[in-house]
C-alpha cells in the first residue's frame, strides 16, 4: 500500500533577524540556513591562492592541555622528528658522523609512537610505515646525507599536511626508494634481494 508522506510545515520566526538585514555586507558569516546567500564580497583567490600562505597546522588545531587526540600527539612527535633529523643533517654536513647517527637513532626511537597514531589516515600510515621498515632494513647502518634530507623534508611536509592523500603518500614512498631506502618489510626486502641476485 502506498503511503503518502505528510510533511509538517514548520516556521521559526524571530522578533529580530539574526544578522542585520539592511544591506550591511561586512559580515559574511557562516550561513546557518538553507537559503541562498546574498551576493557578497568574497576575498578573491583567483591567481593569488597559489601564493597565499596556507594556515599553520598548529593554528588550525590549537592544542588544548592534556589532549588525548592522536593528531595532537602525532604533531608533537613529528615536530620532534623533524628537529632531530635537522640536527642529524647539520652533523652529517659537518662530517660529524657519530653525532648524525646518534640523532638518527633518537628519531628512529620515535617511529613506533608515530605508528601508533596511524588512525590519522592511510597516507600518514604509509609514510611512517615506510620509514619504519627503511630503518630496519638499514640494519644499523647510518643514513647518508641525501637520505636524511629526504626523510626530514617529507616529515616536515607530513607535519603540515597530516591528512595527506594516499596517492601523494605513495609519491613520498617513491622518493624514499629513489634515495636508496628500502621501504618494504624485511622478508619482502630479502626476497627482492634474492631475486635481484638470481637475475
Amino acid at each position, binding site marked *: 500500500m502506498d503511503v503518502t508522506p*505528510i510533511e509538517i510545515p514548520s516556521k521559526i520566526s524571530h*522578533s*529580530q533577524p539574526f544578522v542585520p538585514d539592511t544591506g550591511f555586507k561586512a*559580515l559574511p558569516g*557562516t550561513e*546557518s540556513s538553507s537559503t541562498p546567500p546574498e551576493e557578497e564580497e*568574497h576575498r578573491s583567490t583567483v591567481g593569488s591562492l597559489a601564493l597565499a600562505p*596556507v*594556515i599553520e597546522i598548529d593554528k588550525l588545531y590549537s592544542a588544548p592541555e592534556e589532549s588525548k587526540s592522536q593528531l595532537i600527539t602525532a604533531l608533537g612527535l613529528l615536530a620532534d622528528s623533524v628537529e632531530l633529523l635537522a640536527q642529524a643533517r647539520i652533523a652529517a654536513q659537518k662530517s660529524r658522523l657519530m653525532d648524525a647517527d646518534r640523532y638518527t637513532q633518537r628519531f628512529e626511537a620515535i617511529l613506533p609512537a608515530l605508528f601508533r597514531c596511524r588512525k590519522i589516515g592511510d597516507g600518514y600510515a604509509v609514510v611512517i610505515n615506510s620509514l619504519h621498515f627503511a630503518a630496519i632494513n638499514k640494519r644499523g647502518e647510518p643514513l647518508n646525507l641525501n637520505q636524511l634530507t629526504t626523510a626530514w623534508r617529507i616529515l616536515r611536509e607530513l607535519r603540515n599536511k597530516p591528512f595527506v592523500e594516499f596517492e601523494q603518500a605513495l609519491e613520498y614512498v617513491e622518493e624514499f626508494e629513489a634515495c636508496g631506502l628500502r621501504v618494504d618489510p624485511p622478508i619482502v626486502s630479502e626476497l627482492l634481494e634474492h631475486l635481484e641476485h638470481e637475475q
Partner: protein
Amino acid sequence: MPVPLSISDFKMTSATCEIRYDNAYLIYDRTGQICHDLKASFTGFKVQSPSPSQTIASAKEGSFVIEAAASRFTTKNPDTKLEQFAIFCKQFFDVVSEGLDVKVFTRLGFRVLFRKDFRGLDEAKSAFTALKLTTLKPTKRFGAADEPNEILLRWEGEDIGTMWRAKAETIKIDAVLPAELEMENSDLRKAFNALVVDVDYYTVAPVERSQWDPKEWIRHSIRTIRRDTDALLGN
C-alpha cells in the same frame, strides 16, 4: 542580582559547518554523482531544490547546501559533544571535496547557536545587561532604548577569526499541522524569551585539504568556543 551564566546553562540549538573554495565548475557535471553518494550515507536523503549552481537537500541528520563556491551542513538538533555532527560533516565534506576536486579551502566556518530561555523578555534582557559586554552608560540612544539588546564582537587574526554575538530576544515558532493529522489543535504557536549566543569560528588563511579533518577540527573548535564563551560570560 542575576546569577552569573556559564555556557553549560545554554542549550545548543543549531550547528553549521561550511567550506568555501574557489569556484568549482565541476558542480555542473558532478552534482548528480555527489547526491547519489550522499544518499548512501544519510538517512532519507532527499534533494529539495536542484539548480545548476546550488543544490539544497535534507536528511534525518540535517540539511545540506552545495554551491559553486561553498557547501555547508546544518543540523538543528546537534548532539551535546558534536561527535555525531562531526562524523556527518566528515562524510558530507569528503564526498563534496572529492566530487568537486577541491584541493584548497579559502575559508572553513563553524557556527553554533546557544539559547538560554527565560520566563520573560525583561528577564532575558537583564541577563544580557548583566554580562557587561559594553562600558556604555545607559542612556537613550538613537531614540531607541537605554541599553542595547544585542552585541556583536569580532576578533580576526591572520589565521583564525571569530564572530561572537549575544542577544536578548523573543523567538516565535508558528507551525500549522496538516488537517490529515486530525489533531485537536493544529495551530501550534510558541514563543521563547531567550538569551541567544551565536558564535561563528572560521579560518582566515587558506587551508589545504590534506590539512583538514572535519572531525578533529570540529572537536578542537567547539572546545575553543566553549572555553572562550565561558570567559566572555564572566566565568
